[in-house]
């Protein structure tokens, strides 16, 4: 009945499995990836459409009714994220076709991108805590492979650290699940929410919620982001773009889900901590972005700033701030993919990451330059691009809630973000042209198609904000009223 919910998980999985069989046929693999992504987009769009018509969709996998079996739950939040993830993944893939090295293509890079998407979509759609852990692992194992594929020395060094951090975080995840199960006796999210509302969120449960916050904070780069800049600088640009667009967002989604659906009874404790972590994340991330002189590091710190900003919206826990946070989350998935793809193109042209060596690219690559300029404005949140709408709603919510300091931090860090990306723009595109066309290591043209695609999407999201907001508000409605989610999942069982 609601079988469409499983399509965004199964399509990439099947496509990835076929690609393993077709190792030598890179062309077929590329075609298959595009077909799979297009199918995923269509499936996700139809899920969004059906949810806006009929409300939350629930699929009890294996026919076991909700609290006993694992159910997939598509509410608007999940569905919109799946859609945005598919778009971001498609563009990263288009960039990867041109930008990855031959050895990469022969070693299943496209297959693992599909598996990564499978894990990401699964995490968004599942309605079960342990299943969330499993899909997290699917996603993380693919990301380990993508990060270490190629085996350059920096990559190996960083992937060891990345894998260790994530394995330890996953261990803590299982520990948190063990505690939660022993207290509540269930792992279905809706059922958990119902039971915790019934027994009250006491000190023990709040402690468990902090364990979850630590785990998801580690994965999403909320305050515990010390591993992120190095790990995101190591892989080839196409993979880094995919990571920046998808991985931290899954962590953010998990925080949103657990703290709006399950642990929402003690906002004075949990949400205050989330807000404090968000503020520190924004500040430290912005400082990192401003102080670095390598493109990769600057972009990685920009990822961190955005995480802080979204969690600022989530932590305030009002209808309006949820709307803003989700809108900004969707925007950020596309914007981060865009800026990473363009940054990757610049790096491939100069053959270096150091800003001080760059100069005068606008003469040869005007379209790349203008794309980068638009992307920088989108990141900072300049209208009519989509970042603006999300930022305005979050900040308006912040000021209405009396969170003046946090709002000020949000605005200041936005300016610092603008400065950091403009620094990249000015150094690489302005100034004297030092390099002749022949000296350039690559043309960077592969970035143009995905670049224009993403700029088009961001513009459409900004100009059609009213239309997108209709869907986003439906998601925020569920986020601020967990009973809607619980009813949809459990009523079906009864």
């Amino acid at each position, binding site marked *: 009945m609601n079988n469409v919910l499983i399509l965004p998980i199964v399509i990439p999985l099947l496509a990835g499995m076929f690609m393993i069989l077709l190792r030598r046929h890179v062309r077929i693999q590329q075609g298959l990836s595009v077909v799979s992504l297009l199918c995923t987009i269509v499936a996700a769009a139809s899920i969004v459409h059906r949810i806006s018509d009929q409300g939350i969709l629930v699929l009890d996998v294996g026919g076991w009714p909700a609290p006993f079996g694992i159910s997939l739950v598509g509410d608007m939040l999940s569905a919109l994220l799946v859609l945005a993830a598919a778009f971001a993944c498609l563009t990263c893939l288009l960039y990867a076709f041109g930008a990855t090295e031959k050895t990469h293509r022969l070693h299943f890079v496209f297959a693992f991108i599909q598996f990564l998407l499978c894990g990401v979509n699964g995490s968004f759609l599942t309605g079960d805590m342990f299943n969330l*852990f499993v899909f997290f692992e699917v996603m993380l194992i693919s990301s*380990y492979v993508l990060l270490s594929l190629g085996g350059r020395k920096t990559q*190996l*060094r960083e992937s*060891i650290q990345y894998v*260790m951090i994530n*394995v330890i975080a996953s*261990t803590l995840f299982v520990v948190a699940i063990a*505690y939660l199960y022993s207290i509540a006796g269930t*792992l279905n999210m809706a059922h958990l929410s119902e039971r915790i509302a019934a027994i009250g969120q006491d000190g023990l449960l709040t402690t468990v919620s902090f364990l979850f916050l630590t785990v998801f904070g580690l994965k999403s780069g909320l305050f515990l982001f010390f591993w992120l800049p190095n790990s995101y600088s190591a892989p080839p640009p196409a993979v880094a773009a995919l990571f920046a667009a998808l991985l931290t967002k899954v962590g953010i989604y998990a925080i949103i889900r657990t703290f709006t659906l399950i642990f929402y009874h003690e906002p004075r404790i949990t949400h205050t901590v989330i807000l404090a972590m968000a503020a520190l994340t924004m500040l430290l991330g912005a400082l990192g972005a401003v102080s670095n002189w390598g493109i990769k590091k600057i972009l990685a710190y920009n990822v961190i700033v955005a995480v802080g900003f979204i969690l600022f919206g989530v932590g305030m826990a009002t209808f309006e701030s949820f709307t803003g946070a989700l809108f900004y989350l969707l925007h950020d998935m596309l914007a981060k993919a865009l800026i990473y793809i363009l940054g990757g193109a610049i790096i491939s042209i100069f053959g270096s990451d150091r800003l001080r060596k760059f100069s005068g690219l606008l003469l040869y690559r005007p379209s790349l330059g203008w794309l980068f300029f638009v992307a920088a404005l989108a990141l900072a949140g300049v209208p009519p691009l989509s970042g603006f709408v999300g930022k305005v709603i979050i900040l308006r919510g912040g000021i209405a809630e009396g969170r003046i300091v946090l709002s000020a931090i949000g605005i200041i860090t936005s300016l610092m973000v603008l400065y950091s990306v403009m620094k990249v723009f000015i150094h690489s595109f302005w100034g004297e042209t030092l390099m002749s066309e022949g000296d350039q290591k690559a043309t960077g043209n592969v970035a143009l198609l995905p670049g224009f695609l993403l700029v088009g999407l961001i513009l459409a999201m900004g100009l059609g904000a009213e239309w997108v907001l209709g869907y986003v508000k439906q998601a925020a409605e569920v986020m601020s009223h967990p009973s809607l989610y619980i009813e949809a999942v459990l009523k079906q069982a009864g």
Partner: protein
Amino acid sequence: METFLTIISGVLFTVGTYLILNKNLLRIILGISMFSHATHLLLMAVNGVKRGAAPLLGEKAASFTDPLPQALILTSIVISFALTAFLLVLGYRTYVELKRDFLRKWKDQPDE
């Protein structure tokens, strides 16, 4: 029984933490696998080991053990097994490439 398992799990976590704080790569990997064992024991201990009977005895059974923690442990074991294997390969490859297995000296390696 549960108390005993909890203590053992705590000991394993301690040993794992000690090993992870080491600078030798192999010990860190061993520490991580200690961690996963500790987690599995914990999962078992906090959810009750023995409640008198086997899990599936029909709907009218007076007592039965909750089978879910064991299912969770099984899944988790598979995942941590795969991860340990991956980490060992990654560690070996890193050792071959960087010619050293001490994390401390990695910082000396220049970025490419």
